[in-house]
């Protein structure tokens, strides 16, 4: 079977699946506006990486890596990547649960889960704790706004009192 001059083979499909998941997940992590979507995107990318790892140990004419008495000489698919994927899946769910727990705390602290809103509140928060009056976005590219020397920066009354 060919499509657009490209032969459709099993490996093409499987690698498309694995890399497709990784890329969709990566795009989601970068592009999603909502924190919860970012957590989902991370899970998707992880699934793709796991699939890729399993593919790396596949053999055409082989059986699953479990000995069943008599036919112990039959070739098997590589058990090592499978063991690695087992580990990676469980690690993934641990990280995911931690992320969900942190998201709850973020919601509690900031009242929102919108990524850009969180970032803005965070900047204001850090500047506020440090006692700096915010003079615009910290995300501005380097050199865009002229920076006064540190001792001329306007300070809030609280920090100049010492």
């Amino acid at each position, binding site marked *: 079977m060919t499509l657009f001059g490209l032969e459709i083979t099993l490996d093409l499909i499987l690698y498309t699946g694995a890399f497709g998941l990784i890329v969709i997940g*990566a795009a989601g992590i970068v592009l999603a506006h909502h924190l919860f979507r970012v957590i989902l995107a991370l899970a998707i990318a992880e699934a793709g990486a796991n699939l890729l790892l399993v593919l790396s140990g596949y053999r055409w004419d082989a059986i699953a890596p479990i000995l069943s008495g008599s036919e112990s000489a039959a070739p098997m698919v590589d058990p090592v990547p499978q063991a690695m994927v087992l580990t990676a899946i*469980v690690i993934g769910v641990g990280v995911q649960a931690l992320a969900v727990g942190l998201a709850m705390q973020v919601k509690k602290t900031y009242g929102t889960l919108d990524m850009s809103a969180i970032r803005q509140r965070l900047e204001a928060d850090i500047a506020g704790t440090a006692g700096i009056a915010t003079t615009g976005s910290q995300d501005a590219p380097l050199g865009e706004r002229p920076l006064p020397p540190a001792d001329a920066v306007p300070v809030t009354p609280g920090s100049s009192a010492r």
Partner: protein
Amino acid sequence: MRNLASLLFAGGLGFLLMVFGLQFDFGNAPMLVGQAIQSAAPEQVGAANIVTAVVLGYRGIDTLGELAILFAASTAVGLILGHRHTSTKPDPDSGLILRAGGELLMPLLLVVGLYIILHGHLTPGGGFQGGVILAAAFFIPVLARPSTPLKHTGMMLIEGFSGAAFILIGLAALYSGGEFLQPLLDKGTLGNLVSAGTLPLLYLAVGLKVGAELAGLLAHLAAAEVSES
């Protein structure tokens, strides 16, 4: 602008990976290590399920690290969300059917989970898969009656001592003259339930640890209070 750049990045990453992907010799894995493990595993470890032999034997310390990750995640979630049981208004208890079903299901799930764990060295399945089922068994009572929280002391004991048991089995090997996590005890006959030396014991510890940690995580998340204001 940023979105466009990241889309380009993601697309480029995908294209590059795809190009590399097509160069792979799919279906003919080199299996340098895999082949060696496959032929040595029955003798060295004695497990019919080679994946189990790798997970608990050849790469045992990975599994220990993984248990530690679950423990760290559960501990961190507990630390972040804290104890708020007194102030939290729990969800109302669910209906009679779910409560009764939960009580019936729990022992059943416990048995199935333990079965899967203890046959991990023979058939597909083992500590992780069985552990998840154990977690479900531990968590179902919480789901059925949110007002009665998970029994923390018992959970904490299982959590602590199953993890410790894994390490202590490993240390027993170290102090009987071998290396950490070296297989101990008689290998038995390949394919028997009592075979593969300490492997079933290790998997039991893994299963209990995974079950306890995951149930703890779920309970923390379920009990968390996110202010509605």
